C-alpha cells in the first residue's frame, strides 16, 4: 500500500548541492520496485452494467483468462453485488485481482433504489479500511485492501445518449470512485454514429457535472499518450473469448455473416486503448487516486460526522488527541447521565410498586376484617339458634319427665286400687 507521500516542496533551509561522483541512491526506485514486487500488487475493479451487457466477457478478454462467471437472470428483485478474488501472475509480478460485478442492475421496473446498493458497497469497503487505520494495533502492511480502485460503467449502445439510470448512478458515484465509462457491445454502432454518440455522452456528463476519471497528464513520460486517450473517452469496446483464424493467426474476434470483428484491431474498437490505459499505464495512478482523493474525502466526512474537527471554535489547531479526549469525556459524562437516569427511573419504579403493594395489602386487610365480622355475625346467630334449640329440648325433656311421672303415678294408683280391690274381693271370700 503506497503510503501518503509528503509533498516535496522546496525546503527553504535546504540548499541544493551537486555531487562530484556517483553515490548510488538512484537505485532507490529500484529498491521500491523490488519491495513492491515481492509484496505483490492488489487491484479491485467494479463493473456496473445491465445484465447481459458483456461485463464478464470483457473482464475475461482484458485479463486473458476465464473467470468462470455464470449468467444471471433478468428477474432479480434487487440489485446485488458479487465480488470474486483471483491471483494472477505475469512474468514475476503477482496481482491479487478482485472483480465486483453488479447483478440485476437495470432490470427492475422501479430503478430508483438501484444506485444505493452500489454506493453502500463502496462505502463499506472504505469503512473497513478506516476501521483498520484507527485501530490501536493495526497491520496495514498485511491488510487486504478491498477498496474499489476503478469502476467501469458499461453504457448500452443505443446510439442516442445516456440512459436516465446511467446519469443518476454516475452522479452518485463520481465522488466515491474513479469512473471509467465504456460503450459496451460497440460492434453494433457504425463509425459515424459512434463519433456522434461519444460527443453526446461527454457533453451530457459535463453538463450534469459528473466527474469521470481523467488520465493524469502531469507526468511528462505519459502525458502525451494520456492526453490523446482522454480525447477518446468513452472507449467503445468489444469483448470476446472466442478465436477466429485471420490470415495465419488465431485472434480474439466475433464472427458475423458480414465480417469478422477483431477485438485487438484498433480500427474496429477501442479495446486495446482500454487495456493500455487501465492496466499498462495508469493502474498505479488509479490506486493512488482512490487512496488520496476518494478515501480521504470519505474519511473526512465520516470523522466530521463523528464530531472531529481540525480547528476548534477559536480557530486554534486541535490535535486528534485533544478531540479524542474531549469526546471521551463527553462520552463518559453521557454514560454517567444515563446511569443516573436509569437509577432514578428504577427508584421511581420501586416506589410505585411499593405503593401499589401497600394498597393491595390494605385492601386485603379490609376484606379480611369484613369477612371476620361476617363470620362473627353468623357464629353469634348460630349460637343463639343453638341456645334456643337447647332450651326447647330442655323444656321438652322436662315435659316428658313430668308426663312419665304422672303416668307412673296413675299406674301405681291403679295397681294399688286393683290390689285393694283384689284384697277386698279375696277378703270377702
Amino acid at each position, binding site marked *: 500500500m503506497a503510503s501518503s507521500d509528503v509533498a516535496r516542496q522546496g525546503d527553504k533551509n535546504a540548499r541544493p548541492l551537486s555531487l562530484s561522483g556517483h553515490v548510488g541512491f538512484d537505485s532507490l526506485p529500484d529498491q521500491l520496485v523490488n519491495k513492491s514486487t515481492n509484496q505483490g500488487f492488489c487491484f479491485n475493479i467494479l463493473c456496473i452494467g*445491465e*445484465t*447481459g*451487457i*458483456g461485463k464478464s466477457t470483457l473482464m475475461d478478454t482484458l485479463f486473458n483468462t476465464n473467470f468462470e462467471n455464470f*449468467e*444471471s*437472470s*433478468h*428477474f432479480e428483485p434487487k440489485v446485488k453485488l458479487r465480488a470474486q478474488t483471483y491471483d494472477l501472475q505475469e512474468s514475476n509480478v503477482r496481482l491479487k485481482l478482485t472483480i465486483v460485478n453488479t447483478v440485476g442492475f437495470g*432490470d*427492475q*421496473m*422501479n*430503478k*430508483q433504489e438501484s444506485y444505493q446498493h452500489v454506493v453502500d458497497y463502496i462505502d463499506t469497503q472504505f469503512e473497513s479500511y478506516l476501521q483498520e487505520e484507527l485501530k490501536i494495533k493495526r497491520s496495514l502492511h498485511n491488510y487486504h485492501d478491498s477498496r474499489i480502485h476503478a469502476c467501469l460503467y458499461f453504457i*448500452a*449502445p*443505443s*446510439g*442516442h*445518449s*445516456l*440512459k*436516465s*439510470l*446511467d*446519469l*443518476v448512478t454516475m452522479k452518485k458515484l463520481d465522488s466515491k470512485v474513479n469512473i471509467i465509462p465504456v460503450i*459496451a*457491445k460497440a*460492434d*453494433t454502432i*457504425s*463509425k459515424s454514429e459512434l463519433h456522434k454518440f461519444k460527443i453526446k455522452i461527454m457533453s*451530457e456528463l459535463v*453538463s*450534469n457535472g459528473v466527474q469521470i476519471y481523467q488520465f493524469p497528464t502531469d507526468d511528462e513520460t505519459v502525458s502525451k499518450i494520456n492526453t490523446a486517450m482522454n480525447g477518446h473517452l468513452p472507449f467503445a469496446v468489444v469483448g470476446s473469448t472466442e478465436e477466429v483464424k485471420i490470415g495465419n493467426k488465431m485472434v480474439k474476434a*466475433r*464472427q*458475423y*455473416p*458480414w*465480417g*469478422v*470483428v*477483431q477485438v485487438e484491431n484498433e*480500427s*474496429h474498437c477501442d479495446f486495446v486503448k482500454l487495456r493500455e490505459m487501465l492496466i499498462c499505464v495508469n493502474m498505479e495512478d488509479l490506486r493512488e487516486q482512490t487512496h488520496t482523493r476518494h478515501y480521504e474525502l470519505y474519511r473526512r466526512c465520516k470523522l466530521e460526522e463523528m464530531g472531529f474537527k481540525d480547528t476548534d471554535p477559536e480557530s486554534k489547531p486541535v490535535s486528534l488527541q485533544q478531540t479524542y479526549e474531549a469526546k471521551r469525556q463527553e462520552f463518559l459524562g453521557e454514560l454517567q447521565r444515563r446511569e443516573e437516569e436509569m437509577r432514578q427511573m428504577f427508584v421511581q419504579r420501586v416506589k410505585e410498586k411499593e405503593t401499589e403493594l401497600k394498597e393491595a395489602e390494605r385492601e386485603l386487610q379490609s376484606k379480611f376484617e369484613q369477612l371476620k365480622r361476617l363470620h362473627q355475625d353468623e357464629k353469634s346467630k348460630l349460637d343463639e339458634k343453638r341456645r334456643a334449640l337447647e332450651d326447647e329440648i330442655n323444656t321438652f325433656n322436662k315435659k316428658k319427665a313430668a308426663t312419665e311421672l304422672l303416668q307412673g303415678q296413675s299406674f301405681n294408683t291403679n295397681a294399688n286400687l286393683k290390689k285393694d280391690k283384689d284384697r277386698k274381693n279375696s277378703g270377702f271370700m
Partner: protein
Amino acid sequence: MTTNIRHKGRTIKSEDGEEKEYVGFATLPNQVHRKSVKKGFDFTLMVAGESGLGKSTLLNSLFLTDLYKDRKLLNAEERINQTVEITKHTVDIEEKGVKLKLTIVDTPGFGDAVNNTECWKPLTDYIDQQFEQYFRDESGLNRKNIQDNRVHCCLYFIPPFGHGLRPMDVQFMKALQDKVNVVPLISKADCLTPTEMRRMKDRVRDEIERFGIKVYQFPECDSDEDEEFKQQDKELKESTPFAVIGSSTVVEARGQRLRGRLYPWGIVEVENQSHCDFVKLRNMLIRTHMHDLKDITCDVHYENYRAQCIQQMTSKLTQDNRVESPIPILPLSTPDVETEKLIKMKDEELRRMQEMLQKMQQQMHEQEL
C-alpha cells in the same frame, strides 16, 4: 339481334374441348379488387420499446419513406422522470394505384424513466379509447363515414443486449396481449452472431411460452396449398421472433446500391436474409398478413372489448333502472351471473349422475360375465 346474343350464355371452350356454361361470378375477386383499390386501405401500427433500439429507422426502412423528419431527442436528464406520450403520424402512400393510409402510433418515453412502473398505461388507455370510439361510431345512427383508428398491430422491440426477456418486456406484453396483436422483434440484430441469435430466439420463445404471453400467431396454412408455400410458412413460424436491422442509408455492396450499415469489418445488408429477418418481417407485415392482422383486431380483440363493455353497461343498468342506455343494444341474451351459476350447478349434478349410472351399468355387466 344483339339482345339475343346477350341472353344466350356464352360458352367457353375448356381444356378437353367440352363446352361449359359460363355464368360469370368468377370475376368476383376482380370486382373486389377494383372496389378495394378505389376505397383504399388503412392500417394502424403501434411501435413500442425503449429509445435507441432503432424503431424509427426500422419504420423508415419498412415503408421506404422518412417518417421522422424533424425529431427532437431528449437528453438523459430530461428522461429521468419522463412520462410516456402517444404521438400519431399519418401518411398517405401509394403504390401501383393502391392507396394506403398508414398511421404510426409512436410511444416516446416508454421505458426511459428511472421508475417505469405501469408505463404501458398510456398505451392501453389509447387502444381502449380507439375501441370505444369505434364502438360509439358503430352504434350511432349515421354510419356513413366511420373512421377506423383501431390499432391493428403493435411491434414490440426487445433489446438484444441481455439474455432474453426482461421483467418490463414480460409485463408489457401481458398487459397488451388481449387488446392488440403483439409482434415481438429483436432489435439491432447486428449485435449478435448467428449462434448467439439462435440462442436468444430460443430463449425468448421459451420465455414467452413459460409466462403465457399471447403474441400474434400466424394463421395455419390450408392443407391444399402447395409444398413450397407450406415450407415457407414453416420457416416463417420458426424464425419468430424476427431479428431485425434497419437502415436509412444506402451503401455500395457487391456492385449494387443497397440499404445497409457500413462497418470497418463489413457491410450489413438490411435485405439480405442471411443477415437479418427484415425481409421476413416486411413480407409478413405488409405483403401477406396485413389483412389477417386487421381481421384479428376486428374479430377478436374488438369483439372482446365490445362484449366486456356491454356486460359492464347492462350490469350497471340492472342495478339502476333509471339510466338510459346510451347505445342501442339488444336486450340481455346473455344470462346474468346468478342463473349462470345455477345452470353450472345443475350441469355438474347431471354429470355426476351420469357417471354413477355408467358405473352401475358396468358393475352389472361385470356381474353378468
